[in-house]
């Protein structure tokens, strides 16, 4: 049993591309749900819009990646407006219903046979859609530290990815400690109180929805560029729910919550999976097949998270006193 391999894999994944993508999605949810109180259950739709914009524009239409990125971001804003305009005037649950439905509609649409020419059907779009980005790679060799192994390509994606996260975290920090942040937090607590003080809550909610969606879209763009492949079944609602898990794990309405949450979540998931794999390979566990590991690691991590929510419901960074106020 190679324990250092298990640790090495876990660390590599906890800091890797997937963690970055989920971190970005969770940062979007933090703005929307953590600070503004908007229940967006379709964050994966924003990621899908980003990833598919890259795939479709670069591969299907043969245009440049640098044109695809701004178009993807614009499409994301358009999606947020389409979702927000009818629902943000209504009670909070309407947004939740509409977003989760829309995320499934988008997945089924890009998966459909009728639109296979553009979106590639169930196979998705495969091809060197991130090449223009990888051409800029300043790294010349793979990285092989004791507990960290990345290819040269991954290293480049990870460097840019965490840099983006750093910039967006700084921007989030500036936003939420400003008077703008005070208004959105007020809306989270009681929209009518904020309205009664002369603030147009609708506009603030729309801004939060757009900004949070854009963060999810950046995650989707990173996905397409890093994996050079987008498939419809990557964009199932689970992505949204894992992002929420990450947010609550790190602590909602905490600037660093999504970063800490994403790292811990992926560390645990990979650690449990690899650990079980090694135990099975070594013959220490005989009642499981290697194919059982996938689902079982989710069960175990899920149990762990339940424990966390019972003993530390405010998340890792949260303030317990703040949580207690909800009960009043």
């Amino acid at each position: 049993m190679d324990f250092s391999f298990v640790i090495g894999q876990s660390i590599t994944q906890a800091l890797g591309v997937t963690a970055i993508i989920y971190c970005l999605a969770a940062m979007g949810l933090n703005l929307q749900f953590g600070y503004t109180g908007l229940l967006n259950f379709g964050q994966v739709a924003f990621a899908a819009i980003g990833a598919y914009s890259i795939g479709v524009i670069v591969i299907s239409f043969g245009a440049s990646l640098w044109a695809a990125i701004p178009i993807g971001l614009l499409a994301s804003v358009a999606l947020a407006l389409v979702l927000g305009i009818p629902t943000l005037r209504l009670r909070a649950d309407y947004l939740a219903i509409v977003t989760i439905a829309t995320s499934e509609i988008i997945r089924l649409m890009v998966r459909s046979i009728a639109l296979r020419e553009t979106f590639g059907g169930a196979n998705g779009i495969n091809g060197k859609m991130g090449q223009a980005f990888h051409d800029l790679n300043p790294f010349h060799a793979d990285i092989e530290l004791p507990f960290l192994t990345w290819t040269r390509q991954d290293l480049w994606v990870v460097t840019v990815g965490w840099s983006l996260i750093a910039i967006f975290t700084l921007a989030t920090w500036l936003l939420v400690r400003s008077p703008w942040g005070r208004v959105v937090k007020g809306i989270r607590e009681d929209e009518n109180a904020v309205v009664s003080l002369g603030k147009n809550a609708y506009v603030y909610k729309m801004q939060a929805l757009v900004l949070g969606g854009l963060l999810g879209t950046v995650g989707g763009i990173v996905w397409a560029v890093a994996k050079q492949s987008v498939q419809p079944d990557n964009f199932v609602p689970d992505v949204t729910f894992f992002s929420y898990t990450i947010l609550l794990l790190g602590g909602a309405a905490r600037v660093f919550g999504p970063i800490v949450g994403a790292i811990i979540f992926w560390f645990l998931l990979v650690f449990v999976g690899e650990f079980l794999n090694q135990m099975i390979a070594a013959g220490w566990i005989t009642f499981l097949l290697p194919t059982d590991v996938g689902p079982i690691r989710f069960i175990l991590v899920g149990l762990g998270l339940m424990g966390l929510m019972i003993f530390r419901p405010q998340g890792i960074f949260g303030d317990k006193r703040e949580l207690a106020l909800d009960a009043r």
Partner: protein
Amino acid sequence: MPANGQRALEAQSALATVPRVPGASKPDPILVASSIVRRFGGLSAVDVDHVEVQRGSITALIGPNGAGKTTFFNLLTGFDAPDEGAWSFNGRSMGRLSPYRVARLGMVRTFQLTKALNRLRVIDNMLLGAKGQRGERLWASLFPFLWRGQEVKNTERADVLLKRFSLDAKRGDFAGSLSGGQRKLLEMARALMSEPELIMLDEPMAGVNPALTQSLLQHIKMIREEGSTVLFVEHDMDMVHDISDWVIVMAQGKIIAEGPPGDVMKNSEVIDAYLGSRHEKALTESGESLTTGEIK
């Protein structure tokens, strides 16, 4: 009557010649509402023919539970839409205006069921009330130097108000940790942060202890002295008697009487609909004890 300032005398003398009838027109109304109807199914919760509120006065809106006072507030401030009717504030027609616009025009209300913003600190609750904040715009918020100065000024003003409302010790606490009465105070102070021309208070004294009620009365009078108009709903008749220049009585959605507090409370219709026949006696008794209390 405790010492009243210049504005109180002005308001009372302006109202002296107004006829004591429902819907009486006032010399200088800040708010004028006509034929306002709001139905919930078969029930007409509000059915007001005509009402005016004198500028610079403290006007009380009283009436039994379910009379439609809160609903009337909701209609006037845009939180609810009437089935019929029109009203104007400062001469500006207000029908169908979104509630945030109503507030920006200077007509700010509080809620009967207090809306403290629980997971915001008391001082942030206050700052939220300030108007025209540059830092509330998305882009400007990213550049603190654009709004720091304004924020400092607003904070100073908030601290003065917090002190006035005996909440200065709670400045840094979460609003959710305040008691019910403290929340009432916070909501009122927060509304004052926006420097409203007309402040509409829905039961500001509910749950506030007697000692504090006395100082709150002074605050409300001070609001009038600073040039604002106060319209408030209250069930505590001693308080209504003590501070209002004018009283409007609602019952079953209609305005049934208007006049200075002394007159209204002797009105037999009001006694029947609201006060009950035993009230007059109770009021004089407590009125006496109030006076002796003050002499001491």
